[in-house]
């Protein structure tokens, strides 16, 4: 196992950040930790990268214990924190050289690993890190996290605040790194990124709600799900919430995602009810649940 977490708990003052967390990540796996702000993702990363002691439980990374063998772990992992943590006053190249030297290596020695990412920022290698755009900072941070050829890569919300084009490029980079045998633990608040991972853990309020492959997690959704639309979104949501047979009503882009309490949902009956409430252009069609639907059902 590349990462093994057993019954980890951590509290700060009155706040419980992690409650009895257990999971395993296999070697070469791209594992996603999916959850909103405040779910405990960063605390867990800090425990696993030996920057914070857990109150209870044990964990190993690359077969090293996070407490006993913390020095070995630091040499074996790359960590890209959520907040940009490189030296803003050093240039791109100076930052990279700095991190290579700290780990007793050189840029040349492991250039192959970072090449694809680094060539995109190499034209700006004399620019100070603080003057880079968000997308370029992210690429530099990833290069620095990789320069000592880590076995395990920890990426804490690498795509937060990044536009869709850069996000897509970033995930393509992760897939290529994975092919080189690096185990990756990545956290994200974006549910749509879950589908890009081999396996995911859904996490909220310090607790894991579910762990599995994205497809198998979607299969656990217990109900038939319907897309409903009408001429007035506000009225539609209000009326659906007041409908006596409703089980869940969530706005979802241009539709409302609706589930019914009954197993034999009667579409015509609901259409008539909505018509009675003066709604027009009503459409109801069955749709496939997403990770986000499952997350809401589990968190309900």
């Amino acid at each position, binding site marked *: 196992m590349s990462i093994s977490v057993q019954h980890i708990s951590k509290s700060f003052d009155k706040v419980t950040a992690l409650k009895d967390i257990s999971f395993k990540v296999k070697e070469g796996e791209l594992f996603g930790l999916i959850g909103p702000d*405040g779910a405990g993702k960063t605390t867990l990363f800090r425990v696993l990268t030996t920057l914070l002691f857990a109150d209870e439980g044990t964990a190993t990374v690359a077969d090293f214990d996070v407490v006993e063998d913390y020095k070995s772990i630091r040499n074996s992992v790359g960590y890209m924190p959520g907040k940009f943590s490189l030296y803003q006053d050093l240039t791109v190249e100076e930052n990279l050289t700095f991190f290579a030297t700290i780990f007793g290596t050189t840029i040349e020695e492991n250039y192959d690993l970072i090449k694809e990412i680094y060539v995109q920022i190499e034209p700006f290698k004399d620019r100070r890190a603080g003057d880079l755009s968000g997308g370029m900072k992210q690429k530099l941070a990833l290069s620095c996290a990789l320069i000592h050829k880590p076995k395990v890569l920890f990426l804490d919300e690498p795509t937060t605040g990044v*536009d869709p084009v850069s996000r897509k490029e970033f995930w393509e980079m992760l897939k290529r790194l994975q092919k080189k045998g690096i185990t990756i633990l990545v956290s994200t608040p974006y549910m749509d990124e879950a589908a890009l991972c081999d396996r995911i853990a859904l996490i*909220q309020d310090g607790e894991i709600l579910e762990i599995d492959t994205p497809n198998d997690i979607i299969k656990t959704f217990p109900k038939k799900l319907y897309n409903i639309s009408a001429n007035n979104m*506000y009225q539609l949501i209000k009326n659906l919430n007041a409908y006596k047979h409703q089980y869940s009503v969530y706005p979802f*882009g241009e539709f409302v995602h609706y589930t019914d309490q009954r197993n034999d949902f009667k579409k015509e009956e609901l259409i008539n009810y909505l018509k009675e409430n003066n709604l027009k252009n009503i459409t109801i069609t069955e749709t496939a649940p997403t990770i986000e639907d499952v997350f809401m059902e589990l968190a309900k």
Partner: protein
Amino acid sequence: MKKENVIEATNLTKTFGEFTAVNKITFEVKKGEIFGFLGANGAGKTTAMKMLIGISIPSEGQATVAGYDVSTRPEDIKKSIGYMSQKFALYDDLTVKENITFFGGIYGLKRSQIRIKSEELINNLGLQEVSNDLVGSLPLGWKQKISFSVALLHDPKIIFLDEPTGGVDPITRRQFWEMIYETAHKGTTVFVTTHYMDEAEYCDRVSIMVNGKIEALDTPKKLKEQFKVDSMNDVFLKLARE
């Protein structure tokens, strides 16, 4: 009946030296509409929004917001709009009530109005138990709902939301969108700037800025049809690649 426009921009342009940040954008937003203003980092959406909220004077072109010209009546615009950003919202070291009183004062409400509005807001959001707690001690989702309500204290014609729901859990996020729908239903225009494409899916119409220009403007449904894709994310990727 044709609905009135609350924002009208014609060839609105902003240049910084040689650099054109916003390049002749033309669009209008109707009363009660939820309008998404999208673009990648650096596409010019923040610069454009600064002109619309009266804190940056256009280099060329014109715009009216809530009936006032952005170049000549910026102070009147500021009184007619609300603004909420994910980055700056409320003072963590003030209580819920103190925040409401403070922002009410900033927006020029009388003490008696503030008292009524404050009570209304606290009751609507079910905050009776925490109204004297420091805002910093509340969960992110609550803060967002309070800051949204605070931005509406002075009954603005338009509320500007800057990436309003990033990072919050999916259920709270939907409660937040229900508040936005309700606000729009009551006639307040909601102007959302974001680069989170799933926020774009909730808007009545969206515009997408690329390199200072508006390259697409329509309902999410029609844009998806036009680009033959399933999500706004894919619309965005197609536009940005061309």
